[in-house]
């Protein structure tokens, strides 16, 4: 998986690319989010547009990131969820946990910055 972070009007947008699967991408996701949290970022938006595959480990990491950001008083939201990843979140009743956006400007505005 490739990750890169952009700052847009007070929101840290994390663009992910590739696979978030066991042994490849799962730990990397957690580390990237942890670093943002350590740097004091509170508004975090994960752009999933180019995520090609996710498995239960990747979903687990996503949930773990959500919890750690929330625990620090931040907000973790999702952008451009591919349909199959949306399905995977839906069947485990996680889709309602996350705020999911289909357009970046709308997502950025939602943080109320």
């Amino acid at each position, binding site marked *: 998986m490739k990750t890169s972070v952009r700052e847009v009007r007070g929101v840290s947008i994390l663009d992910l690319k590739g696979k978030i699967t066991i*042994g*490849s991408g799962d730990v990397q996701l957690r580390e990237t989010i942890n670093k943002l949290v350590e740097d004091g970022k509170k508004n975090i938006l994960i752009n999933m547009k180019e995520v090609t595959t996710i*498995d*239960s480990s990747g979903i*687990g990491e996503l*949930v773990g990131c959500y919890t750690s950001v929330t625990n620090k008083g931040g907000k973790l939201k999702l952008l451009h969820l591919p349909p199959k990843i949306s399905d995977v979140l839906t069947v485990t009743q996680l889709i309602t946990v996350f705020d999911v956006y289909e357009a970046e400007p709308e997502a950025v505005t939602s943080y109320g910055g």
Partner: protein
Amino acid sequence: MSASKPPADAGPVRMSLSSRFENIEMAQHLCGKLLEGREVSEETKHWILMALREALANAIKHGNEQDLDKRVHVEMRVDQNTLEVRIRDEGSGFDPERVSDPLAPENRLKTSGRGIFYMKTFMDDVRFGRHEGGGMEIVLTKHLNASRE
């Protein structure tokens, strides 16, 4: 021409892999090939391969505990439009009855515990057993032409 129609049953294909997560894709790739030319949508194929990934990840992680001296054994076959994949590890096994429900409110935000649930969601049948040679064996079944959702 290019993709010659496979016969009704070309016999089971067996493979074994060393206990590395990188090898999951080898088995997925072979399963994809086995499904080639079958009556199965890309959608269904995707979910089958995800279930297979989950079973292999468990065999490598929980079963063989990533011990490189232990292998994961996979047997796949399509017979009468039913795909059956058996995944066996060389670990000490577990009691599937005691796996907790990932949908229970107290588990909903856990960072693990969804693999078996996904297998059950995406396949028609998931059976657990102990293999005679030791280790856990999971049998995933999917009826191919019935499942074009």
